[in-house]
């Protein structure tokens, strides 16, 4: 087991290191979220009530689009210099690679989400401090679900031209995340969002299990 964790961690470490040096994904994603913020501001204007009603959807629209970019790139980097061969030749259970890539994607998304939430708070003068613990929980569960599907599909579509084909599979995660975010942002107790959180937890688990079990078949090729 410790070997399994070590192998997963070495994938995370490798991706983090190359990301720290190239800053490719983070730069793209943060710049992209900034752009989204402008569009939101243009369409909503200064009306605070409208901003607050639309906020859960806007946040998740931002995360989803950033996620699409990020997940699509996950395995693209492995296409160069025969890195794919290296992954196939890696010893042990291939699902360790999946989990490593998944952790990397979740970390990347966490950075983007933190920046986007911060920018929202700043530019729309919203105060998230009172709802922060609940918000973090919802974002974590939702991001895990999106990333679990996105990482698996990223591996499938790394060799294809169209990468957004498989999105409908993520609809329940988005629906549950947006609904739970709405409840949390309204300042209602977390128990109100319990069904959504449970659903998110169940969805995360199902996607993770499917991803772990099927990843080795995707990696071949």
């Amino acid at each position, binding site marked *: 087991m410790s070997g399994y964790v070590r192998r997963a961690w070495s994938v995370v470490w490798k991706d983090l290191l190359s990301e720290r040096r190239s800053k490719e994904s983070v730069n793209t994603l943060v710049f992209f979220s900034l752009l989204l913020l402008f569009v939101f501001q243009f369409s909503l204007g200064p009306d605070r009530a409208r901003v607050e009603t639309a906020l859960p959807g806007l946040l998740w629209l931002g995360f989803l689009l950033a996620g699409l970019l990020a997940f699509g790139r996950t395995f693209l980097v492995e296409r160069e210099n025969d890195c794919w061969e290296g992954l196939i030749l890696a010893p042990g259970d291939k699902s360790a690679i999946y989990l490593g890539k998944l952790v990397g994607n979740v970390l990347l998304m966490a950075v983007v989400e933190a920046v986007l939430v911060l920018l929202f708070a700043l530019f729309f003068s919203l105060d998230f401090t009172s709802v922060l613990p609940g918000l973090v929980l919802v974002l974590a569960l939702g991001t895990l679900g999106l990333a679990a*599907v996105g990482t*698996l*599909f990223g591996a*499938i*579509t790394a*060799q*294809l*031209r*169209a990468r957004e*084909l*498989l*999105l*409908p*599979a993520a*609809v*329940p995660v988005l*629906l*549950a995340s947006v*609904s739970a975010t709405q409840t949390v942002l309204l300042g209602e107790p977390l128990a109100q969002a319990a*069904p*959504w959180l449970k*659903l998110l937890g*169940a*969805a995360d688990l*199902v*996607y993770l299990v*499917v991803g772990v079990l*099927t990843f080795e*078949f*995707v990696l*071949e*090729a």
Partner: protein
Amino acid sequence: MPVRALGWLAVLGLVAGIVAAFGYAPREVMQGNVQRIMYLHVPAVLTAYLAFALVFIGSVGYLLTRRAGWDRLALAAAEPGVIFTGITIASGSIWGKPTWGTWWTWDARLTSTAVLFLVYVGYLLLRGMIDEPDRRARAAAVVGILGTANIPIVHFSVKWWRALHQPATILGPEPSPIAAPIALTLFVNWLAFTLLFLYLLAKRTEIARLEERHAE
């Protein structure tokens, strides 16, 4: 030729189904003749579920055995499955206009059926994009499995979100309150649709086999 016999049985069943739906089944008291759309709507969705169950079985079977036959089964089931889901949505829409007053509403089961439709359209598009048979089969199998694992999640997520559609009468927990003639008509139509589906499945599998042989 058993496949051809299956085809004729399906034709027979569909004719009997149409006759029963318009001649035998009584006129519904509240909705009038519009309700007869049910004899198309319900068998179509049941057949679609059967089809997607077969996609799942074919996908798992392929990953376990790597035999091309399982992949052909998944493909041959997915295509009619998407068609039958499309029929479900279209007929439901036509039924919804006079009874609910709208072609489409973001109700729980409408939404979940639409998501199901999109997931399997995506599955077919993905298949179309990969040329290498082996790689296509593996990618498709993974998506086929995820698509099925997703069905209960989609179901519950949209169910908690909202509900306008009448609850399921046939597959619901309580004994069905449907009058006998209506139930019988529904059964005949369901049988006919299942036969039609099996016929399409057999034909499509055959075509897929010929395609593969041709490619070799």
